[in-house]
């Protein structure tokens, strides 16, 4: 690229800022090739009206032309979109369980299960809990072989609030508090 006029010289070159679609993470002009065009359109029209009008007003004709020509392609895309939709729904339905487990008479631990369904890094979360509550907190495998976070001490209510605050994608209704009184028979 050395001979083209816009090749970088030795002067300071500033990085370009490229907007990315908030829904599918692609640069918006490539959304039409992603699986979730409709959702991307919605997102763009909400977040960047100027770009939206540039992209989709001219694009509409193109799209109409291509989709007419390839009905099979459309079907495929619809299928894929449905798949993603399903995954999202599943994600939204999955529960986060906060469980208070008694260890001895007046000592207990709190276990948090199911956070990973919301793309939370468990290790990071455990560390956060440990910092926040000044107590031991770790990621362990429970007897079903699933990962859960075990926090020492009864902090179930605090964790409830903290999860809501820290990972807003977790819907409040999906968090369940359980008290497990008699643990181990």
């Amino acid at each position, binding site marked *: *690229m*050395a001979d*083209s006029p*816009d*090749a*970088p*010289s*030795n*002067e*300071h*070159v500033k*990085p*370009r*800022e*490229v907007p990315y679609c908030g829904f*599918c*993470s*692609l*640069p918006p*002009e*490539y959304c039409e*090739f*992603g699986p979730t065009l409709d959702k991307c359109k919605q997102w763009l029209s909400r977040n960047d009206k100027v770009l939206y009008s540039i992209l989709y007003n001219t694009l509409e004709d193109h799209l109409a032309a291509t989709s007419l020509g390839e009905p099979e392609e459309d079907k495929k895309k619809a299928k894929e979109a449905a798949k993603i939709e399903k995954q999202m729904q599943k994600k939204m339905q999955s529960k986060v369980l906060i469980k208070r487990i008694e260890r001895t008479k007046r000592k207990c631990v709190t276990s948090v299960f199911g956070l990973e369904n919301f793309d939370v*890094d468990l290790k*990071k979360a455990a560390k956060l809990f440990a910092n926040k509550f000044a107590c031991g907190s770790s990621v362990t495998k429970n007897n079903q072989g699933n990962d859960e976070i075990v926090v020492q001490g009864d902090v179930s209510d605090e964790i409830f609030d903290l999860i809501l605050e820290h990972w807003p994608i977790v819907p409040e209704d999906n968090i369940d508090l359980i008290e497990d009184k008699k643990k181990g028979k």
Partner: protein
Amino acid sequence: MFKKFNIKEDVTGHTQVKSSVQRAIRAKILEQYKEGIEGIIDDVMPKKAPLILMKCHEHINLIVMNNEVLFFNHFDGHYYPTLKLLHKYPNMLPRLQVDRGAIKFVMAGANIMCPGLTSKGARMDVSVPADSVVAITAEGKNEILAVGTTKMSTDDIKRINKNIGVETVHYLNDCLWKTVVDL
């Protein structure tokens, strides 16, 4: 290369490299891209910032700085810039343009066939030899679509006009694109 890639499973380990190794990597990248990167290397890879090397399966190395993947390579091969980096500095690499029809195949991970580079919507304004790293843009788009290595020189692509012209290494919406590094 990144059709299937999962940062949790495919990364065997990450280390902060010694400054001598960092210098070596930097020198190699500089040597490879020469004019394309000289002006920006200090922005892309500040000398002092810690550089993290992630080793992945199949001898893929990711070069990570400030929680961002900047480059990757395979064995001791070329260092490829990631698309996020390329979007910031699009002049780093020579650019080839494919036609509109090719976009969806490229985004599914296909290699780029010669006709896709020689047809009406496509452009090859630069001439590059075989086995060099190029960025792929698309007809009617501003942003870069993929990164790859040329399998034959651009002259050959025009002349032969058959088979694979550019081997796609990293493309939009592949697993590396979706990867978020969090150390």
